[in-house]
């Protein structure tokens, strides 16, 4: 096989940090090449070097693309050469149509006048290629994330791509959309498209990748060949973290005690579809010292349910009862919910959780300013003491608590967010995707913190899309589908298959009843 891309001895230094140190990556024509590494290992920097975001001359080493030395001065150069990156945060304009997005900046036009017939004709061809059956005129904002991802790929294909780079393509996708995307990658490979996939999801890497390059601390650690049987999740993890992860989930003595929180008859409507309940009659409980999971696909209403519970932060016409510690609890506003002992740790820490421009210390005290003030006047010394205490307890890795949160890694940001809510002294914590987008080592630490919280006698509710994580951590798992809880499994009886079959059954039931309604 011929080599399409060779990055040799790439080093890149930022003031005070050596982000890349002699990295070598070789990608063969027509293969799917995975790049794995913890957050901060240097994957994104490497991709920025490749795409010309860091122009030639700002790094050491050489890039050979299709046999020629590439000296990209910007994204324009790399795209002209046929290298297209699809970033984690999709770069689509929601209000523009699929066709307009695909040819944005590359319009099919004559003398500045857009040729719509040509645009739609080519869009339809591209959509067929990625297996998306939507009208080219449909606004991208009306599509789900999975379909938007396909539009991005169609956009890349429209540019006669030779090397497609996908940065965490399935991070925001639910299970079946992820599978579709991976199948598409394999299909494109069959058509001769070479791709690089950057992913934390090692099962997906194992499924599609021909070869895997593992990067740790800015250096290449290993290149594994799937066809030589070298690719296994254990091996990748070992190379990524530089040690064996004997147990992916820390041990815990499971000791659930009396019921701490009980929710009954919880229903809510979607603010934009007020005709029916979006959250349907949910009842559940969590005990002291228990970790309870909520499984379900994206779009099943997990986050919406949790947020409606936490001070009616989501939804309209919310009904239902909450008992906390044996008493009726008022959780109708966020301050009241916090007062009652409930805490919700959002899945979207950047948009909904943290003030990125502010230091750690102000973020940690934000939800309990009363705890660091007297008569409305802040006590700086107390505030710093509190933050320093959590920095130590949570092992937030940073020189001091005055660092801006935006400069922290995903794992450390998650710990700051957790600290903020722990400082409200909650009895029950709802953790929404607590390990999304953080590296393996930090995940392990978050699991440890969750175990500790349960050991202290709190109730922990964990919402997650990663089923292995739920199975590894939870004492009980509720399965959610279409806004309702459709099943409850104990740790002993739970399995991925059982959870999926509960979800699928609910979908079938719903479809059936909708058909009945349509006929009746």
């Amino acid at each position, binding site marked *: 096989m011929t080599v399409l891309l060779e990055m040799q001895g790439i080093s890149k230094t930022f003031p005070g940090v050596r982000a890349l140190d002699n990295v070598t990556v070789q990608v063969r024509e027509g293969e799917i090449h995975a790049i794995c590494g913890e957050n901060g290992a240097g994957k994104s920097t490497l991709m920025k070097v490749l795409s010309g975001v860091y122009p030639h001359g700002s790094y050491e080493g050489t890039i050979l693309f299709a046999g020629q030395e590439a000296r990209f001065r910007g994204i324009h150069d790399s795209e002209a050469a046929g290298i297209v990156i699809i970033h984690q945060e999709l770069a689509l304009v929601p209000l523009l149509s699929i066709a307009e997005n695909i040819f944005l900046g590359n319009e099919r036009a004559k003398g500045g006048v857009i040729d719509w017939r040509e645009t739609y004709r080519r869009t339809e061809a591209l959509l067929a290629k990625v297996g998306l059956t939507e009208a080219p005129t449909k606004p991208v904002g009306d599509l789900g994330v999975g379909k938007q991802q396909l539009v991005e790929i169609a956009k890349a294909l429209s540019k006669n791509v030779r090397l497609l780079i996908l940065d965490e393509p399935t991070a925001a996708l639910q299970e079946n959309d992820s599978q579709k995307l991976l199948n598409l990658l394999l299909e494109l490979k069959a058509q001769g498209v070479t791709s690089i996939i950057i992913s934390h999801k090692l099962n997906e890497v194992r499924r599609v990748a021909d070869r895997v390059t593992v990067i740790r601390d800015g250096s290449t650690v290993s290149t594994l060949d799937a066809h030589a049987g070298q690719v296994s999740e254990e091996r990748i993890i070992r190379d990524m973290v530089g040690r064996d992860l004997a147990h992916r989930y820390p041990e815990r003595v499971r000791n659930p005690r009396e019921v701490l929180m009980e929710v009954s008859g919880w229903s809510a409507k979607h603010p934009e579809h007020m005709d029916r309940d979006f959250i349907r009659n949910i009842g559940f409980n969590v005990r002291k010292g228990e970790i309870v999971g909520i499984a379900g696909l994206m779009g099943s209403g997990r986050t919406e349910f949790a947020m409606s519970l936490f001070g009616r932060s989501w939804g309209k016409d919310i009904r239902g009862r909450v008992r906390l510690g044996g008493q009726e609890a008022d959780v109708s506003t966020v301050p009241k919910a916090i007062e009652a002992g409930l805490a919700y740790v959002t899945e979207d820490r950047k948009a909904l959780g943290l003030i990125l421009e502010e230091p750690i210390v102000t973020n940690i005290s934000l939800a309990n300013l009363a705890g660091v003030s007297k008569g409305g006047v802040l006590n700086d010394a107390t505030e710093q003491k509190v933050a320093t205490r959590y920095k130590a307890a949570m092992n937030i890795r940073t020189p001091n608590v005055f660092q801006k949160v935006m400069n922290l890694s995903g794992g450390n940001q998650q710990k700051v967010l957790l600290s903020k809510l722990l400082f409200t002294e909650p009895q029950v914590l709802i953790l929404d995707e607590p390990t999304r987008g953080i590296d393996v080592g930090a995940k392990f*630490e978050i699991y440890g913190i969750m175990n500790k919280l349960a050991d202290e006698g709190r109730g922990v509710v964990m919402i997650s899309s990663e089923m292995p994580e739920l199975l590894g951590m939870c004492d009980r798992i509720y399965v959610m589908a279409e806004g309702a809880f459709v099943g409850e499994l104990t740790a002993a009886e739970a399995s991925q298959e059982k959870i999926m079959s509960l979800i699928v059954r609910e979908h079938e039931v719903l479809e059936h009843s909708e058909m009945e309604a349509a006929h009746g």
Partner: protein
Amino acid sequence: MADVDNARLGPGERGVGGLREGEGLSANGRSGAAYLKDNLREYGMLLALLAIVTFFVVLVRVQIGVDFLNPQNITNLFLQNSYVIIMALGMLLVIVAGHIDLSVGSVAAFTGAVSAVLTVNMDWPIYAVIPASLVVGGLIGAAQGYWIAYWRIPSFIVTLAGMLVFRGLTLWLLGGQNIGPFPPAFQALSTGFVPDIFGPDRPNYLALVVAVVAALAILILGIRSRARNIAHGMDAEPSGIFWIRNIIMAAALVFVGWKLAGFRGIPNVAVSMAVLTILYAFLAESTTLGRRIYAIGGNLKAARLSGINADRLTFFTFVNMGVLAGLAGMIVTARLNSATPKAGTGFELDVIAAVFIGGASSTGGSGRIVGAIIGAFIMGVMNNGMSILGIGIDYQQVIKGLVLLAAVIFDVYNKNK
């Protein structure tokens, strides 16, 4: 978990103690120039003000042959800029909360007109007129804040409407006429001076004493907070820069006090300005109320999920802005000794410019009271200096516009660096 951590830490970052030590070194051992470079924005404003003042001192001396910093002109600087500074305090909070208020010029004109009608036409005593006008300002702020906070209508639109409405109401209330003159008690709001408790003769010792006390207070508070920062492991200012900065500031204060002592002493507006500045700096930096305003500007959704009542706070910032606009309106009216339909035209631009020159972020969440004050003085000194030099209003506007743009460009450049 402990061995996990150590395994993940590279050599040289093992253990917190090691880091602390390294940091202490960097704070004390690093050169002052490097520190200045890292905190360019903070010092830049102060240096810019200093440079602009020096520039005018030299130019006014060379061109006209008088002292730019003569006692009367220093007094004038306070009188001319008091309204901008007072409204900048409220505008900073509005901008930090992520909003804007375009109506303050019109609101100031309207409350000025109300105070004129009450005082001149209806013979209300001053102790009734002042609170009544402040309440009018507050009610106007509440009326605008209600739509912004509870109906989520963009503040730009609501206050643009307010700008037109209250300009119109000012014209209507005054019937297109000027109302005045005012009794001396009302004029004293702006043009009065604090009597010298040490005796009626010149020089005015009170001004000097107040300036010296204030300078000492700045030094002592500065030393205390620096010691506290070092104790908590914060990246403290190198001692050289700390002393230079504080001594310049203290010297400037004493200098101003000495100059004021040679004229008529401390203007009343300087007292209200100083008191309000201290009050708002405290509110912004040391109270939960202030912290929450910064939080809603920094990340509205995160603040809401942290149990912060963002709507009520937004409403408060606009009520507060209205009250301060009311106060500024009375001061302007008192200074002109008449309420005019044209009063306060373009004030909103000076005030907003002052806040942005002072380093507030246009997207909300950051900005300091001290910055806004320095920004207001930069605008004020330029206005005053250019007028003395006889520079036409045409060039003045161009220059002010460019300074505003330069300050914000400097900000953005600094952030991206």
